[in-house]
């Protein structure tokens, strides 16, 4: 007995829609699916079409329908048009090119491409052009090419878009379609014209050769466009009084591609662009769509300046349009052109700024970006007012970008330092929690450089802290400043505004408050502890500070604990160093690349950067050695130590010890003390002074020259440069001069480095160092220290004339020393057992 006819599609839809719950719907679907499955199993040709249609409906509701895939193929193979229609639809919905099943379609499609009925051919072209895989495209490209040459415009237009798809899938096949494009544009049929322009566009975008080849079509395209504009009302293609806007837009886009970078083509289209720009009706969206495309084309090709101004003015008018869509595209386009046509865009600045108040999020964002692009020295004050107001009221998503933008603009165009500081304050207080992490060190650097504003800045920051300690970047900057300039704060030196009366205890209260507050992050706590420590040399409340520091020596927070322990040590063991260590920071130089990943930052980067993992990798190292104590305070702080040391002459045997590269991050100093003099005669801190060189043991931006060797009339000086492309390479140039009476002949400079280093010695200028300083020998050494290890240098000279005079002379060696007390306290520097201290990640 035969099963009853499967229910019709509409009936099923009706039934399913009556389901009141998801579960009920699921049940119905499952029942119907079961019926369909058994029907499929019976290989029922009559109702296959109906069943697949139902399956497609259920698929749209989200239910699995893969068991219908093969059925689609059977439908495609059927002779009935109804079957094919549903079959191809099913294929497009259920099959995807990832599955091999889809390849079974290829033969059917091939047959149908040659079918006697154009609507069948159309189905095949549509399916191929929508979802054809690369394999299918390869197999059927020939058929498509054939149809591209047919006189049947219904098929020709479809073949053109199918060809576009083939080219996208298999670019190598593009060539084969070239002949067929010959007279595509002579067609009268708009469908063919439109799809042909799309095809030509695709080819020109993909191949510069095609582009040059098709440039000759510019006059023809211009003619077609002109006809569209000039011709009277054409009911078939009219949209709100404009003739075939779709075709117009596509032609304009192709013209853009053809005219770009080509003077002749650009000139040929100049007139038509002007015509379209001035004559197009702008009351409806469709007219504006054409104007929009025209503007994009004008801006991209080599158009006359008059035309460009016209384009920008169109955009300016767009900005005033009631339609927010139009305003949106105007802002997008202006953003693209603001670099090249800056002045023209500036004229519309006030309208753009008004868009900051728009309700639409996308418009606001674009307006913000554009505003930043338009800020310059002349309008900075006005613009900043608007931007700060925007910052106050905008969505949280915007605040970070807006704050960064404001900082950048302020830095570039600040009319005065006071204004700059005020602007920073405003941002920190209104959007302080959204400010990016890297802003903190940048701001600190900025503040240090505004020397005359220190008192004002610290006062304002202090007052801000009194109001609100929740915004971490603000708190961090404020702590740092108070630590640095606390003395100015309590002495009431502010000139810019009424100085406030605040006592040392009050300041310490605030800083201690930060330490205990739940709102403070660990980074912030680090800042405040360090600030408190710094105040030990600026305030007189030493005992209070000592107490705080010692309390945190047992803090659970490892960072904090470590700092406290080391600061404690500073109080106890190294108290004589404390004033020098905690001295005021000098002005920081800003290096060219100042991004957060840039490790070679300014000298004396703040101590707070230690916790910021974006900075020097070595900083993130949990430095447990006690001699890192001084590292914490930043390189610059170490300068005073060196300055107070007396450079002693290198001892003879055993050689000297020079902290060659470590020294270089200091802003200069005399010859470092040799380790040989270390053991007894010098106080212990000298030793530490050498070992605890700044954390930045990669060479700092500015390395002063140094005298590496000065003995018996032979002076060797080193000058340093950072290699331009690779800042990790130090380029050392040695100058050897000889003040003795005799020439030093056979002068050879040798250098050796530990394994992780790479060394390149270029040829010296000569082997003879002339007497009486009459000349010098120069030689360039390139050193790469990829692991950024500390490097110590041991000089030994070797020279023929010397050999006769002194006994122990040996080659110049760069050695690496283990940073441990035992190694340094002894003067046994010839010991070759050297270990690398990886100070970096």
């Amino acid at each position: 007995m035969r099963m009853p006819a499967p229910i019709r599609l509409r009936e099923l839809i009706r039934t399913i829609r009556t389901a009141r719950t998801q579960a009920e719907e699921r049940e119905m679907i499952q029942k119907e699916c079961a019926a369909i499955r058994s029907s499929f199993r019976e290989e029922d040709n009559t109702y296959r079409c109906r069943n697949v249609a139902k399956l497609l409906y259920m698929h749209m509701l989200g239910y699995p329908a893969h068991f219908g895939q093969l059925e689609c193929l059977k439908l495609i193979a059927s002779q009935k048009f109804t079957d094919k229609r549903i079959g191809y639809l099913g294929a497009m919905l259920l099959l995807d090119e990832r599955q091999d099943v889809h390849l079974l379609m290829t033969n059917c499609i091939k047959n149908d491409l040659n079918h006697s009925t154009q609507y069948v051919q159309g189905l095949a072209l549509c399916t191929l052009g929508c979802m054809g895989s690369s394999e299918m495209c390869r197999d059927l490209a020939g058929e498509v090419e054939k149809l591209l040459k047919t006189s049947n415009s219904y098929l020709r237009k479809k073949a053109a878009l199918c060809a576009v798809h083939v080219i996208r899938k298999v670019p190598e096949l593009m060539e084969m379609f070239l002949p067929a494009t010959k007279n595509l544009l002579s067609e009268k049929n708009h469908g063919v014209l439109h799809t042909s322009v799309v095809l030509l566009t695709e080819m020109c975008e993909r191949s510069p050769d095609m582009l040059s080849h098709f440039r000759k079509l510019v006059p023809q395209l211009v003619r077609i466009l002109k006809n569209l504009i000039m011709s009277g009302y054409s009911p078939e293609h009219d949209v709100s009084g404009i003739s075939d806007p779709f075709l117009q837009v596509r032609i304009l886009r192709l013209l853009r591609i053809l005219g770009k970078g080509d003077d002749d083509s650009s000139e040929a289209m100049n007139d038509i662009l002007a015509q379209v720009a001035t004559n197009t009706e702008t009351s409806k969206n469709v007219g504006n769509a054409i104007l929009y495309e025209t503007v994009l084309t004008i801006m991209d090709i080599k158009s006359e300046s008059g035309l460009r101004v016209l384009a920008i003015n169109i955009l300016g008018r767009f900005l005033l349009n009631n339609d927010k869509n139009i305003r949106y595209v105007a802002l997008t386009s202006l953003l693209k052109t603001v670099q090249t046509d800056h002045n023209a865009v500036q004229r519309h600045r006030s309208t753009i700024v008004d868009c900051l108040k728009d309700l639409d999020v996308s418009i606001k964002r674009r307006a913000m970006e554009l505003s930043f692009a338009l800020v310059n020295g002349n309008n900075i004050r006005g613009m900043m007012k608007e931007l700060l107001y925007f910052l106050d009221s905008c969505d949280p998503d915007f605040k970070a970008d807006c704050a960064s933008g404001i900082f950048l603009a302020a830095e570039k165009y600040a009319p005065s330092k006071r204004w700059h500081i005020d602007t920073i304050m405003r941002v920190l207080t209104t959007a302080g929690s959204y400010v990016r992490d890297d802003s903190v060190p940048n701001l600190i650097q900025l503040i240090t450089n505004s020397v005359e504003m220190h008192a004002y800045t610290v006062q304002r920051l202090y007052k801000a802290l009194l109001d609100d300690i929740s915004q971490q970047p603000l708190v961090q900057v404020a702590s740092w400043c108070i630590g640095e300039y606390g003395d100015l704060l309590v002495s009431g030196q502010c000139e810019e505004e009424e100085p406030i009366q605040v006592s040392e205890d009050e300041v310490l209260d605030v800083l201690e408050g930060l330490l205990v507050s739940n709102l403070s992050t660990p980074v912030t706590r680090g800042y405040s502890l360090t600030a408190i420590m710094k105040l030990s040399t600026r305030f007189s409340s030493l005992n209070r500070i000592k107490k705080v520091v010692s309390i945190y020596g047992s803090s659970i927070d490892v960072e904090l604990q470590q700092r406290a322990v080391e600061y404690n040590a500073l109080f106890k063991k190294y108290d004589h160093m404390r004033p020098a260590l905690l001295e005021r920071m000098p002005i920081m130089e800003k290096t060219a690349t100042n991004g957060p990943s840039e490790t070679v930052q300014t000298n004396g980067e703040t101590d707070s950067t230690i916790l910021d993992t974006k900075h020097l990798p070595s900083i993130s190292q949990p430095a447990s050695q006690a001699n890192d104590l001084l590292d914490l305070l930043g390189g610059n702080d170490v300068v005073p130590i060196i300055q107070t040391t007396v450079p002693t002459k290198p001892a003879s045997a055993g050689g000297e010890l020079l902290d060659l590269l470590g020294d270089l991050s200091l802003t200069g100093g005399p010859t470092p003390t040799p380790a040989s003099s270390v053991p007894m005669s010098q106080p212990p801190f000298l030793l530490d002074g050498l070992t605890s060189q700044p954390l930045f043991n990669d060479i700092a931006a500015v390395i002063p020259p140094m005298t590496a060797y000065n003995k018996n009339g032979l002076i060797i000086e080193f000058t340093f440069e950072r290699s331009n492309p690779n800042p990790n390479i130090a380029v050392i140039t040695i100058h050897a001069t000889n003040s003795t009476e005799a020439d030093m002949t056979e002068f050879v400079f040798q250098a050796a480095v530990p394994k992780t280093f790479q060394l390149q010695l270029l040829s010296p200028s000569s082997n003879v160092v002339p007497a009486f300083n009459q000349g010098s020998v120069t030689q360039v050494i390139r050193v790469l220290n990829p692991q950024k290890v500390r490097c110590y240098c041991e000089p030994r000279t070797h020279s023929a004339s010397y050999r006769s005079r002194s006994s122990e002379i040996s080659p110049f060696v760069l050695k690496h020393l283990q940073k441990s007390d035992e190694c340094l306290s002894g003067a046994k520097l010839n010991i070759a057992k050297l270990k690398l201290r990886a100070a970096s990640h």
Partner: protein
Amino acid sequence: MQFMLLFSRQGKLRLQKWYVPLSDTQKKKISREVIQIVLARKPKMCSFLEWRDLKIVYKRYASLYFCCAVEDQENELITLEIIHRYVELLDKYFGSVCELDIIFNFEKAYYILDEFILGGEAQETSKKNVLKAIEQADMLQEEAETPRSVLEEIGLT
């Protein structure tokens, strides 16, 4: 155009046309996401939004959202016109089209779309020509339906 979605205000999908190869899971995920984003838009907002590296152009007609995802270099304003043209075609075909028409005749909605757009680009800019082609194809379908005898219907032959 990479894809077009039609969905109701409750987020029910009424039509989905994909012009890029994606797995079913991917399609589901993308649809869910885009529907969510578009439904969250307020009436005063513009019809364009950025999503991943695409631009979403959408417009609401009565209870249906028409939503296209286009690439960066596409003209958003003309895309709105494309959407409008499609709605006009549906309207002409069904006679004052409403969501129910599209629900109950979804396959026809696809046929019309496939006569208007191919591979993501418009293939015919004349409304008349699209409708004529659909009409002819419908007639072909009717002719092809071989008349079934009553006996066949009740399963006796």
